């Protein structure tokens, strides 16, 4: 019995009719839809409880207080530590994505010598060989740490210990030259100022500790027609800070020195400030010509500055004339109570060891063999040796006084996750024991008995004397407490200025991404410059 075509058709028809009465088509429809909701190639977060840990941000030298949400052993979110004595709970935009940085595609996982894989032993031998041949310079981006002492000791044997200043310290350079106090121990007394004249400093855009000036501005200036705190921004273009300032003065690029001199002249001639120290030779007309402003505007600006004292002048690139103007206005520059290492005399080193805290752009003296520590490869490096350092929250980090701060402070951040197997810090590499150095730094603070301890979230400090030991202090610091010196410990710096300074050519522009010293941006920074029009693409993004 041979089945006919019609039988086959009927069989097929029957099967088609039958299958509708089974779960098959309906379940397939449902399951394929569910499949699209749970595509296996799309990662999903781990399950489990979330724990909040205290830490400090190591992206830049300001050490803002962090609250890190941890789940399944990994950080899953970052927020500011409320009432933190240094950052006041605020963070910069980069910090919010910092916990993802350790998986950045440019993370360094192995020692590299001129682009080729090498070993720690080889690097170690090369450094020893170089040290035998000539002096070794060590560059530290964050002096004042226990680890800095290790680096200083190592350099002290045969070379030079050099600190790489950030933007705030660069702006303090003239005062350091005139007072003999290193810039790393100087700070701005922003809190007392009632008028701030900023020559291009992006005060509201990544200059200084994020929670410091922005907080002052938001409580005393933002949105007010006649604010308690007047911010006058002198800058050629409409930067974020300029648009938010009480007054914006669009002066020509490169005219800061002339403008500062012109202002100083008006202040002295009109007896708006007590005359002391040298007077610039520049006339108001010359200043006006250089700045591209009417002479009247400069006179008016000077009167405006003098109207509400104390006034503080800040130059983004350490323009000496602006510093001189600031001294004329009364200073506002303080010296923190801390022992800062003096800058070493210039030498021609045989080798340079650059700590991971040093900004990626730092250019060491040419001709030396460069040992560069970094957690991320910023590309285009002239380093001979690229040495992988621990990344974000992967080691105990020390956070000495923030650059430009008015009082000394010290904080520790615990290691919240394991570092990759083969990474090392510079201090350990040169033979030191960072853990001992941290304890030694705690002992120093503990012995001095200055200032107090701000525990996590606390508004008031606990006196240091209430702690039983330096080890206890260290534990407290690792749990999120911050040691802050007594404000009375800082004193106004004394500067000797014989004549009005000549103009120095400054080129530093500054800005939100420059505030950060590491070579790459957190991947989520794409929200700011690639996926929105909030920011121009930073030159250093390289993601």
């Amino acid at each position: 019995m041979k089945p006919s075509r019609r039988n086959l058709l009927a069989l097929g028809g029957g099967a088609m009719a039958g299958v509708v009465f089974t779960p098959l088509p309906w379940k397939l429809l449902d399951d394929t839809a569910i499949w699209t909701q749970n595509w296996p190639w799309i990662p999903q977060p781990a399950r489990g409880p979330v724990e909040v840990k205290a830490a400090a941000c190591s992206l830049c030298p300001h050490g803002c207080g962090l609250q890190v949400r941890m789940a399944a052993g990994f950080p899953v979110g970052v927020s500011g530590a409320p009432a933190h004595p240094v950052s006041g709970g605020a963070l910069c935009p980069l910090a919010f994505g910092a916990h993802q940085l350790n998986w950045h595609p440019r993370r360094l996982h192995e020692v590299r010598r001129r682009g080729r894989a090498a070993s720690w032993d080889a690097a170690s031998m090369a450094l020893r060989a170089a040290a035998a041949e000539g002096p070794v310079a060590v560059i530290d981006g964050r002096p004042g740490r226990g680890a800095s002492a290790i680096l200083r000791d190592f350099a002290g044997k045969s070379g030079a210990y050099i600190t790489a200043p950030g933007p705030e310290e660069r702006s303090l350079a003239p005062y350091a030259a005139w007072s003999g106090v290193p810039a790393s121990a100087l700070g701005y007394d922003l809190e007392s100022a009632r008028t701030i004249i900023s020559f291009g400093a992006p005060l509201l855009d990544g200059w200084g500790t994020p929670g410091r000036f922005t907080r002052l501005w938001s409580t005393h200036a933002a949105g007010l027609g006649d604010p308690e705190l007047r911010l006058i921004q002198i800058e050629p273009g409409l930067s974020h800070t300029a648009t938010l300032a009480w007054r914006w003065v669009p002066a020509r690029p490169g005219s800061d020195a002339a403008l500062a001199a012109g202002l100083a002249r008006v202040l002295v001639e009109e007896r708006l400030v007590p005359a002391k120290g040298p007077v610039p030779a520049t006339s108001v007309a010359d200043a006006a010509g250089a700045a591209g402003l009417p002479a009247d505007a400069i006179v008016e600006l000077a009167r405006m500055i003098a109207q509400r004292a104390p006034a503080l002048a800040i130059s983004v690139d350490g323009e000496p004339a602006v510093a001189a103007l600031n001294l004329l206005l009364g200073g506002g520059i303080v010296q923190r109570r801390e022992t800062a290492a003096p800058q070493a005399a210039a030498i021609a080193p045989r080798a340079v060891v650059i700590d991971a805290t040093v900004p990626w752009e730092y250019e060491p003296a040419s001709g030396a063999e460069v040992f560069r520590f970094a957690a991320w490869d910023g590309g285009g490096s002239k380093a001979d040796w690229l040495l992988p350092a621990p990344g974000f929250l992967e080691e105990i980090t020390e956070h000495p006084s923030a650059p430009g701060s008015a009082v000394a402070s010290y904080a520790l951040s615990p290691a919240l996750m394991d570092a990759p197997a083969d990474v090392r810090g510079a201090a350990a590499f040169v033979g030191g024991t960072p853990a001992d150095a941290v304890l030694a730094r705690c002992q120093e603070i503990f012995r001095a008995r200055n200032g107090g301890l701000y525990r996590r979230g606390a508004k008031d400090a606990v006196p240091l004397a209430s702690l039983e030991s330096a080890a206890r202090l260290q534990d407290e610091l690792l749990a999120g407490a911050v040691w802050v010196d007594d404000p009375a410990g800082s004193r106004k710096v004394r500067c000797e200025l014989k004549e009005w300074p000549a103009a120095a050519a400054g080129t530093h522009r500054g800005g939100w991404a420059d505030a950060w010293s590491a070579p790459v941006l957190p991947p989520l920074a794409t929200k700011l410059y690639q996926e929105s029009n909030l920011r121009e693409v930073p030159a250093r993004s390289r993601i």
Partner: protein
Amino acid sequence: MPRTLLAFAIGFGAALAAGWGAFPRVLYQKKVQPIEFRHKTHAAKSGTSACGDCHALRDDGGFGGIPATASCAGCHGEPMGATKAEAALVNDYVKPHRETPWLVYARQPANVRFSHAIHTRLAGLKCAECHGAQGETDAVKPYEVNRISGYSRDIWGRSMSRLRRAPHEGMKMTDCEDCHRKRGVEAGCLGCHQ
């Protein structure tokens, strides 16, 4: 014509057999739990029958789920008896401090938010109302995974037709909705999704 009808009936019957018989076998893959576990024995030995004693709510309102290996270590630090399963527990998980990769029958996908705290504390639901009387079982049943969606079979329920199923059987969204409707509790989309 009768032959045509017969062919149609054969096709119809074959489709029914395939759809109800073969299809579930192909769709679901059986998996065995990594180790054995007896709720009954543990309840008897520890003298507790309250689910929450082992499957506890955390203070933050999260649900602890299956106890961690650390809590097994109290009794199973060393093998209790000579069974193979016992040796596996101690040597594979307790001693190396590894978490047991349990296959969770009631596991919902990442987009589902289910608050045990709200359902047990505020609504007063008993565990068994959704999970069945797990505490009285004497062995862990095999786990079946849907090869397409990756879901546990318990989400759909044993019954392919979903017509006659026990009250606790099935954990699809419609099951949640049915219960909510019965109790007159409203929860928007993001009340139960995340």
